[in-house]
């Protein structure tokens, strides 16, 4: 319920922003960095001592990853494959910090996990250990 309240409040605040405004706003005791891609807003909450400009890069990197994975990602891709979106996020960020700065490595990890999933579903033998 608290989460719902936060979501609603934040969504309202971000959607109220006009197009030419800067990408940062203050909300409660956090800074919100948001970036708009077509009809989607990507929001990220950071603390006072964090660098806003690099957060913009983080958001952009994530979108690039989605784009590479889905091939010209669009909103529907994310909706119908929301678990994949989570999986990709989990390979890029961990516990709120960037874990991997190489686009290539992130995508490779996802690929391998997908392969593993498929291979098991088809009842094939498992992959060798050293995949990464």
């Amino acid at each position, binding site marked *: 319920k608290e989460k719902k309240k936060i979501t609603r409040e934040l969504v309202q605040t971000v959607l109220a922003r006009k197009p030419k405004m800067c990408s940062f706003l203050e909300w409660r005791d956090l800074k919100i960095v948001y970036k708009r891609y077509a009809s989607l807003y990507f929001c990220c909450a950071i603390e006072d001592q964090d660098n*806003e400009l690099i957060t913009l890069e983080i958001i952009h990197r994530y979108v690039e990853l989605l784009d590479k994975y889905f091939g010209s990602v669009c909103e529907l891709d994310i909706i119908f494959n*929301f678990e994949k979106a989570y999986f990709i996020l989990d390979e890029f960020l961990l516990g709120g910090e960037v*874990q991997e700065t190489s686009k290539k490595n992130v995508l490779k990890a996802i690929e391998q996990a997908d392969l593993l999933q498929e291979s098991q579903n088809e009842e094939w033998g498992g992959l060798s250990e050293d995949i990464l």
Partner: protein
Amino acid sequence: MMVPSLKLPDLIQEIRGAKTQAQEREVIQKECAYIRASFRDGDPLQRHRQLAKLLYVHMLGYPAHFGQMECLKLIASPRFTDKRVGYLGAMLLLDERHDAHLLITNSIKNDLSQGSQPVRGLALCTLSTMGSAEMCRNLATEVERLLLQESSSYVLKKAILTAVHMIRKDPELASIFLPPCSKLLHECHHGILLGTITLIMELCERSPVALRHFRKVVPQLVQILRTLVTTGCSTEHSISGVSDPFLQVKILHLLRILGRNHEESSETMNDLLAQVATNTDTSRNAGNAVLFETVLTIMDIHSAAGLRVLAVNILGRFLLNNDKNIRYVALTSLLRLVQSDHSAVQRHRPTVVECLQDTDASLSRRALELSLTLVNSSNVRTMTQELQTFLETCPIDLRADCASGILLAAERFAPTKRWHIDTILHVLTTAGAHVQDDAVANLTQLIGGAQELHAYSVRRLYTALAKDISQQPFVQVAAWCIGEYGDLLLEGSCEETEPPQVEEEEVLALLEKVLQSHMSLPATRGYAITALMKLSTRFQDNNRIRQVVSIYGSCVDVELQQRAVEYSTLFRKYDHMRAAILEKMPLVERGGPQVDEEAKESKEVPQLLEATVPDTAEPQATKLLDLLDLLDGMSRDSQHPVSLDSTPGNALVHPLDLPCATPPPASIPNLKVFEREGVQLNLSFTRPPGAPALLLVTVTTTNSSGGDVTHFICQAAVPKSFQLQLQAPSGDTVPAQGDLPITQIFRILNPNKAPLRLKLRLTYNHFGQEVQEIFEVNNLPVETWQ
């Protein structure tokens, strides 16, 4: 019998196709029912699909708690597909508040020691997302083992960040994770380095011991960063030509923490920082991000003076950047620096002032804050000009800050008194509604003290007031001034402005207009009526003033009524003292209720009239007697703060009071409710506009008999659905044939608009007897509650 369940994509499709909320809810409820059934006795191989559907529904905000146990089952399954969805479910559905979350601890432990690389990855990811303090304590040794022994960089980088999370959850665990750091710092893998640096940062921020320990890696960090910056970047990690900006920023941040308050470390970094600051490509955001972090670091450590100037200049350059985001971070940073490096920031003042005009509210707000800190005695005129222009057009929520900022700056740096008065006047007329309360007091104080400017001030105020009487603080100051210096207004001789011909009639008419206007607050009215009174000694024609003052003797607003009655009495009975009482005010010490020594003599009297009524005490009937006392020269430890210091709202700050909505007569007919041997009770009613459930009743007790009424108490009762509040009465005595009645205000809230009923209980002494009367008020007009 069982409807075949939808596949996830189909479910999503159907939900999105729903045209109303109700329809959506229906689809989801149906599906959830199926999912629940399937969890109970469906095919375990399909369980992950069911959970996935549930997670989608959960994302939309619907309850999904019944899926928590399924997550556990899926995590425990050997199939990777199951684990993947199961762990995701755990991250979305489980958290510290549910006891169930502890149950996955064992699964995580198993997966960490025996799982394949992807599985270990999943476990670590989940642990660092929703791991509670207790879970972290249970699994700390597992993670430590990974830090020491893990060979796969994929798993290792995750383990490091999991350690960061664990420390955040339970700082005591920090000691476990400190030793592996030094070795990890030698790794080449960017992900591992990034994680290690984050870990070191976390350790240093929590423990001074760790901080000292890690200072010795400063040279190593400097080397890593230098290599990153100088060697040709591998495209794998770079963004727009900047090598791994994420890593650069992290290193710079850690250097900041290590170099803070430490000369030696700071020195080691100086060259590198200069290098990064000058060589980073700033054509794209990535480079600017690194540059920004560099600036933050330079400013926070003991850097060389030249380096600091370089940093401020970089910020100045940022201010000119087209990108709003960059301008924003520049303004924020400059604001932080303005204390320590004031002169460096001053150099960029013109650019900052330009940013005031920015259409983006967050930018103009920052620019305003910064501009205000940059005002000093040499630039005050130009800066005030800019700020006043800004005040005219700025968004509403910035007005108050801008106005107070200008006033404060004016106070600190005003080059001349006249400029100061002009400035305050301008602010009051532009943004009067937004200034803080003490602006009125300050201005009257200022004007009072500038004798040579009395004529000038009163003229300007009069002219401006004639145009617009809506800005309350301004009107109050103007009214006060006109009252004090009305004679100068008529004189018509003033070097500083064009002398307009002002007639007595015009001035009185203007003050009356203020008095009657529905825009005027009670405090403003108070000022106006007092000003009128003062003019009675400065102008010729008193009849008009007498008339106005006597009308207000029966005003519903108690404060105004009191003043009016006192002034009328002054005309009638104490006319010989009027001139003395209404002399010009002496200048009072700012900010204190202490009265000037000289003022303690007979000049105290005008102060008493100026004084506002203290919050709760209603005017005592004995006030008039006090006047006489004072003139006998008794020193008065007047506890009344002079109105100069009082806030405009204070006149009737009492929360139970309401602004006087209409001047008398009230629109609801009065009601005589009680009569006994010359003692009469009358009720008058007011329904303030804007408060439809509220009724104000003024109970007036008069005594036309030959005996005094004493110890008068009136109590009231209303039906249960109403709320009743009684204000303190004006007194408890009505002397024989007294012309000053007791008044008391009842405040009745009637949210249900129920028919009003009112019972009164009176007790008093009259003709040596104790009288008690209880009765219900009949014939209450319907307008009191409809």
